[in-house]
């Protein structure tokens, strides 16, 4: 305790100091080099988006090269110039983000506008948008946060999102897939437009199917899939064949809906707490079904973590025999593990007694009424969406991660000799795409709140972690949902 600090060799500390100063100098120099503090700012961007499109057979590899022209933007901050703040969701297909950024920069240079692009992951974008609105300082343009549109646009007293019917008119309203339009139509006005459709598909690893002596085509219903999973489990006791996320996160809610809808589950039929149909025998049955799978060790206990990447990683490391996801894990496989991609088949989600249903997460673009630059933002949306040739390039660079918003582009892609069959899957499952307010299937503020809080995913933690019985869990969550409807609609 009584050590005298002065005894320590002072020279050592001078060296440390010099080291720190050197670090300072390097850092400062690098910073200055990266952000020249001058009145005239020159941003040179060159975003070559080269993407390899691999077909599932993995033998025929076609290369579609998308090159976005290098753009040089010279902006002068001395002059009064509008500045657009943009918040983009970072998608799981980096090429799509690259395309979006590149197009935005091209637009900015053509219009002579400053842009400030922020990105946020799926998980972080919602708080970012909401706090922006909350503090009266929303971004000028948002891409992502699909389950916020009704939350921010439905209440006539607090309509934060700007309607964009004029944008739809400009880009050709009729070509947009009707289902997607309907999802953003509130009181006759459209509030957002989807950049693309991210519809869930089964990622089925073929080698497991052949191993148990079956054919991929034979797997159609949930019963087929579960039987298949049990077979796999028998051969690989170490494996957890069903890749369903059960955590309190976006994917956890997907797991619920994808098993619930086919077995007759329904959320609400209208906008009042009496129209909420959640507390039903179907919900109890479905919860029990998933608990059984979990108890039979078909689902990995780690899946209870609130983590979107768990099932994707399970697929990529082949520790699950199938997962149901928007095809972004497939994109990851194509880019990083082509053998796995070649061993994968994408299919419509398992069928139940009530038919086939799939989850469609929305990737909307929208702007806010409070934004000073909303006209510019609309112009940017038009620029991004109108040029269909460019748009098609984006969809292709996403390697099947997303399907097009346009009917015409879908048609064109389906006819493509190399990748056509993959987009055919998209076209085929389009009728099955369902939104979380099913069977109301309209934008609904209360449902947005339910979804934003991942309420249905609580079912899993209530039963599997807190060991509540199925009845209590369904009732608890059902009451919470009703409560939210009551708060929102007053009845």
């Amino acid at each position, binding site marked *: *305790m*009584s*050590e005298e600090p002065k005894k320590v060799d002072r020279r050592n500390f001078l060296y440390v100091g010099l080291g720190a100063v050197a670090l300072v100098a390097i850092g400062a120099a690098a910073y200055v080099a990266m952000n020249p503090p001058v009145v005239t700012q020159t941003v040179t961007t060159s975003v070559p988006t080269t993407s390899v499109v691999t077909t599932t057979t993995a033998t025929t590899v076609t290369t579609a090269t998308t090159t976005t022209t290098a753009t040089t933007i010279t902006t002068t901050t001395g002059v009064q110039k509008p500045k657009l703040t943009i918040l983009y969701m970072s998608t799981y297909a980096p090429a799509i983000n690259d395309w979006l950024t590149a197009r935005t920069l091209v637009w900015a240079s053509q219009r002579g506008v400053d842009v400030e692009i922020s990105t946020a992951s799926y998980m972080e974008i919602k*708080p970012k948008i*909401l*706090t922006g*609105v*909350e503090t009266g300082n929303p971004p000028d343009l948002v891409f992502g946060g699909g389950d916020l549109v009704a939350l921010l646009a439905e209440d006539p007293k*607090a309509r*934060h999102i700007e309607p964009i019917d004029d944008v739809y008119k400009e880009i050709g309203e009729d070509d947009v897939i009707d289902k997607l339009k309907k999802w953003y139509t509130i009181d006759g006005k459209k509030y957002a437009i989807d950049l693309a459709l991210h519809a869930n598909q089964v990622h089925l690893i073929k080698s497991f199917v052949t191993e148990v002596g079956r054919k991929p085509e034979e797997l159609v219903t949930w019963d087929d899939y579960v039987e298949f999973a049990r077979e796999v489990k028998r051969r690989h006791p*170490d494996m957890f064949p069903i890749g369903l996320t059960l*955590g*309190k996160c976006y994917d956890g809610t997907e797991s619920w809906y994808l098993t619930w809808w086919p077995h007759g589950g329904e959320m609400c039929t209208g906008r009042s707490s009496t129209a909420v149909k959640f507390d039903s025998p179907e919900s109890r049955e479905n919860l029990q079904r998933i608990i059984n799978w979990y108890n039979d060790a078909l689902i*990995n*206990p*780690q899946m*209870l*973590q*609130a*983590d979107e990447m768990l099932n994707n990683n*399970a697929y990529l*490391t082949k*520790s699950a025999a199938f997962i149901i996801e928007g095809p972004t894990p497939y994109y990851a496989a194509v880019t990083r593990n082509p053998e796995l991609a070649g061993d994968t088949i994408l299919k419509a989600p398992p069928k139940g007694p009530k038919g086939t249903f799939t989850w469609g997460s929305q990737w909307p673009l929208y702007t806010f009424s409070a934004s000073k630059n909303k006209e510019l933002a609309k112009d940017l949306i038009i620029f991004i969406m109108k040029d269909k040739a460019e748009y098609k390039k984006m969809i292709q660079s996403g390697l099947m991660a997303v399907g097009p918003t346009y009917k015409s582009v879908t048609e064109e892609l389906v006819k493509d000799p190399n990748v056509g069959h993959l987009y055919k899957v998209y076209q085929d499952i389009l009728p099955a795409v369902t939104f979380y307010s099913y069977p109301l299937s309209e934008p609904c503020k209360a449902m947005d709140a339910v979804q934003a*809080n991942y309420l249905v995913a609580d079912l899993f*933690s*209530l039963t*599997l*972690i*807190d060991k509540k019985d199925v009845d209590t869990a369904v009732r608890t969550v059902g009451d919470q949902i009703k409560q939210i409807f009551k708060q929102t609609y007053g009845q």
Partner: protein
Amino acid sequence: MRLKTREALEGYTFSTPAFLLLFLVLFFPFAYVIYISFFSKTFGYEPVFAGLKNYFLIISDPVFKYSLYISTLYTVVAVLFKLLLGLAFAILFAQEFKGRTLVRTVAVIPWGIPLFVVAALFFWFFDYNLGLANAILKALFGVKIFWLGPDWVVPSIIYVNVWKGIPFFMVNFLGALQTIPRSLYEAAEIDGASAWERFRHITIPGIKYVMLIVCLLSTIWTFGEFDTIFFLTRGGPGYLTHIVPIYIYHQAFSNFNVGTAAAASVISVPIFLALISVILWALRR
């Protein structure tokens, strides 16, 4: 007389910039959190005065009760392990052996590593399929466990905290051990005291004071720790690792209940204040 005034003036001039800044970024926000804890703030609407409503909401929230419980458990167990292992490590390094410098240097590394890296590291270390932890378990005992699954997540996060926190205890203890005069041990040995007796009557009293301070500091930091758990589990699975800081974060940034988040912060303050005053008292002794 004039000299005194002059010195006082100088003192204020010197300390004003620092404390002014601290006031702005620390003391004022601290006061502000108490203020907003009395307001109900729902999304999109102006704050409304709500009296003690937020506090009642918080106290009746089972999740908050669980948060307090799990935070306490986490802190007490982690600090206890850090204390015991830190002491054991320190006693080991007080001995002479070949390679001591090397092992000691390695043992101190976790202290220097940022918490966010520790979290990333263990996220990968604990991976069910490919992580080293399970590879070792599989090789030694033929089992794999779900480190971050419901059954093991609490021991796992305690393990991470202990791994990261031991060096802080160890290094401080080692410093304190070196101040105990060797002659005391020699005298005790001549008197025929056993190793345990020497430890009990010489070592412990010699480092008692450092032990107290180190434990208190570590208790405060462990209780207020946010980084590793946020990175590793985000409070999950379910609410199993929903410690108080995570609860506050979720209230404020996922549920947008600023008022309840503030109330939760304020409720946890007395705990910290009590610990801090013990430290202040100890330091002044």
